């Protein structure tokens, strides 16, 4: 019985994440269009797209690795979602959040990228491979400040558990104020994580024909879009949990995540694309300095 409830809860979590993630993407498209002085698609356009893609009759693939790539992607997005607390202090959707800690999450989030990379690699499309090497290189870039921020919080509060960090924030106030340097470093890392401009070098529509996903169509693309939106929600929730003390109910969660989501989105709107090495050096510049400062700050505190 217990198991059944948990399973249902997990499924509900995933559905919520899917819906919200898709919605944010839609809003993103709309806002981008407005900034560029276009009308833009309606916000629900993404749902339609996904539905259309999944229901396509034929799907072309280049081999088993490409065929399974969306499955790998989903491990990261859904799996990670299940291991982080969605709401604070409630029995709603606890899922598996007490069975993994930050360092584990950090690594778990990568599995999908690896599977995706291999799937894209199998297509034989050179653009895909180029996009992936760029993506991996960029990841090495933004992971450094990101980890620094996380480590700073871990040593400040002597825990690596997300739930513990949330509980601590209940007493001491949000971590974005307790250790603002760590927050800043993490936010800058988030720019890379979301791969919006100026860090959209992976897809780079103009030069790579959308890169890794260029050979994916039909249900593959549909699943990847879904996975992407779930993952976006997952990451946003993680940030909320870590820096804003988590949300007590779903509405607060939506507000907080959306606010965070605006940062990479708006930053992207006004920035032209970096080259890969520029992106890496960007992350190893100020964000890393901030991360180091956060480390020092939390040691001193």
């Amino acid at each position, binding site marked *: 019985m217990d198991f059944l409830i948990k399973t249902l809860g997990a499924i509900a979590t995933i559905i919520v994440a899917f819906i919200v993630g898709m919605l944010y993407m839609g809003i993103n498209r709309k806002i981008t269009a407005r900034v560029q002085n276009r009308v833009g698609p309606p916000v629900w356009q993404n749902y339609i797209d996904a539905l259309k893609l999944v229901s396509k*009759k034929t*799907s*072309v*693939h*280049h*081999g*088993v690795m490409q065929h*399974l790539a*969306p*499955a*790998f992607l*989903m*491990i990261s997005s*859904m*799996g990670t979602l299940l291991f982080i607390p969605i709401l604070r202090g409630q029995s709603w959707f606890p899922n*598996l959040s*007490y*069975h*993994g*800690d930050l*360092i*584990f999450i950090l*690594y*778990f989030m*990568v*599995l999908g990228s*690896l599977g995706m*990379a*291999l799937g894209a*690699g*199998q*297509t*034989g499309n*050179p653009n895909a*491979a*180029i996009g992936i*090497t760029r993506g*991996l*290189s960029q*990841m*090495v870039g933004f*992971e450094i400040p990101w*980890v620094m921020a996380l*480590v700073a919080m*871990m*040593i400040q509060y002597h*825990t*690596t*558990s997300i739930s*513990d960090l949330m509980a601590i924030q209940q007493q001491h106030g949000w971590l974005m104020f307790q250790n603002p340097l760590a927050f800043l470093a993490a936010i800058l890392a988030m720019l890379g994580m979301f791969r919006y401009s100026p860090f959209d070098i992976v897809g780079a529509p103009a030069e790579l*024909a959308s890169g890794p996903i*260029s050979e994916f169509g039909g*249900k*593959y693309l549909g*699943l990847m879009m879904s996975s992407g939106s779930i993952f976006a929600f997952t990451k946003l929730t993680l940030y909320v949990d870590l820096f804003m003390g988590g949300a007590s109910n779903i509405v607060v969660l939506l507000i907080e995540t959306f606010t965070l989501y605006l940062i990479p989105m708006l930053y992207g709107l006004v920035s032209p694309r970096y080259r*890969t*090495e520029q992106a*890496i*050096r960007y992350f190893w510049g100020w964000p890393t300095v901030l991360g180091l400062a956060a*480390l020092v700050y939390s040691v001193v505190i």
Partner: protein
Amino acid sequence: MNIIHITLGILLGGAILTYFANKISGVVRDLMFISTIVVAAALFFIKMTPDTVAVFNLGGITLSLGMNHLGLLFSIIILGLAVLAGFYSLPYMKGKDNLGFFYMNYLLSIFGMMGIVMSKDLVSFFIFWEIMTWSSYLIVVYNGNKANKIGIKYILFSALGAYSMLMAIVMVYSQLHSFSIADLSAGFTTMPASYQITIALLLITGFAVKAAMMPLHVWAPDAYSNAPMSYTAMFSGALSKMGVYGLVIVFVTMVSHLPQNFWVRETIAWLGAITAGMATIYAIFQDDAKKLLAYSSVAQLGYIITGVAIGTEISMIAALMLSIVHGMFKANFFMVVGAVERQAGTTDLTVLTGLIRKMPWTFFSALMSAIALAGIPPLVGYVGKWMLYESLISNGNYILVIVIFFASTAGFLYVFKILYSIFLGQEEPEFENVKEAPALMVIPMVIIALLLGFFGAFPGYLLKYIDNALVVMGYPVSQGKWWEMTTLFNAWGNKVSTDLIMYTTITVFVTIAIVLFYRWKNGRYVSTKDISLSGEMPKEDENYSFKLDFYKPFERAISPLLRYKISKYYNEFADGMEAFFDWTRRIYNGNAQTYAIYVITFLVILLLIANNIFTV
């Protein structure tokens, strides 16, 4: 006559018999070789109990061999890999020259390693260490490729390490008049402080060479990639762990007694981390699969060294865990590359392409090894890494964490590169007739791949042995505090449930896979030439795979780091020494008069200073 005599006897006798069996026929030799390993391993694991002892008296020195749980842990790595790589070796080495010689040295190096983990005194330790070294050396130069460059580099560094060790050994003897390791750990504190620090540093140098710690690693990439892959699996998987084994003993029994202000732990931990970082970067830019894996081995050993050097309970567990796991996945990876080399004829990453459909099982093993190597859950690779991070963070080595994390993340780059370049990308007619490797090669690889998954869910089966080993070294029991069968804990009580992670992963994966396979018939396979490329279709003979300058942007980003290459300094030093030697050679100019002048001059000088140097 107990199991120690028997195991070592079988290995030594088997080595010699294998050599002579080669004169009879290839089949006899192969049977001799594999039965030696299997029988030795089987007997060892059935009969071996800790506290078995064997004593020899040689040349006035008591050599004693025995077994404890630490040794047992490393024996598992050695013999386990020996059996798997041994079977793999039979088809892999088929048709090569001098196989009797190769297999003899193969067995001798196993003999040496087993001897090392059984040694209870420093002299037998050294003897077995050297046997291991020269037998592995003979395999490194076995194929004759640049023997005088690669081989000499290997043996030079090995000898440097071995002689540092020997110096430490005789220093211990001069102080304690005993070679026994037990006496050493008991009497270490009674030695003068200068001896303590010198002995510890010399021993660390000796072991760090085998564990390929920067700046003593320069032999490793060449040696690993030059030996036949069926041996490199052992070389990187087990032989390098002997260095780790030694470091564990040194750090536990000696460094922990040193005064804090020597910074030994910190220095070595940092060197380990820098090794990990730099070797990873070099691995990323290698265009040969063997070289790439060789650098990757160096990098992975860097983590292990850091773990050992930190020396807290959990970091020791992490280091030993990483040792075992690295033994598994890196051996597997080398076997994969060996299989590719045998089937496709090259290991050049810029040439190989699209083998996944030709060698699916090999790819599966490679994929599992890659995930384990990158430390990604749910495979066992992440258990050790997780513990290493936790230990570093809770121990206060914050910057170290970042460096290690950088190395680990950058590791994804080369993992992807090797998988992509060999197995993915466009399929070429050149490799059309490539077949899957023979079953004897595939089975060991797949066994390891599955074990990586199994231990990922139940790391407790490995941690149990590690726990026993650490208890022998004087650490408290860690089960329940740091781990349960399927749970890991950190210093602050946070936990990770490995089984749930595995189940979640499998559930999600299988669910989505079912979705994908639903209406499978609608899916259509198209060749890798049928791609969307700005409206173009590549012709059959055109290869559009992305191969050259794979990580050029990354290279540009970190170019300042690449400017320093330690081997350059070594080469300059070597050139300088050679010039100096050549200069001294000219003292002997072959002229009788000159020699006579030397004699007379020496006599005169000696007469002049005799009153100062000789006292009547």
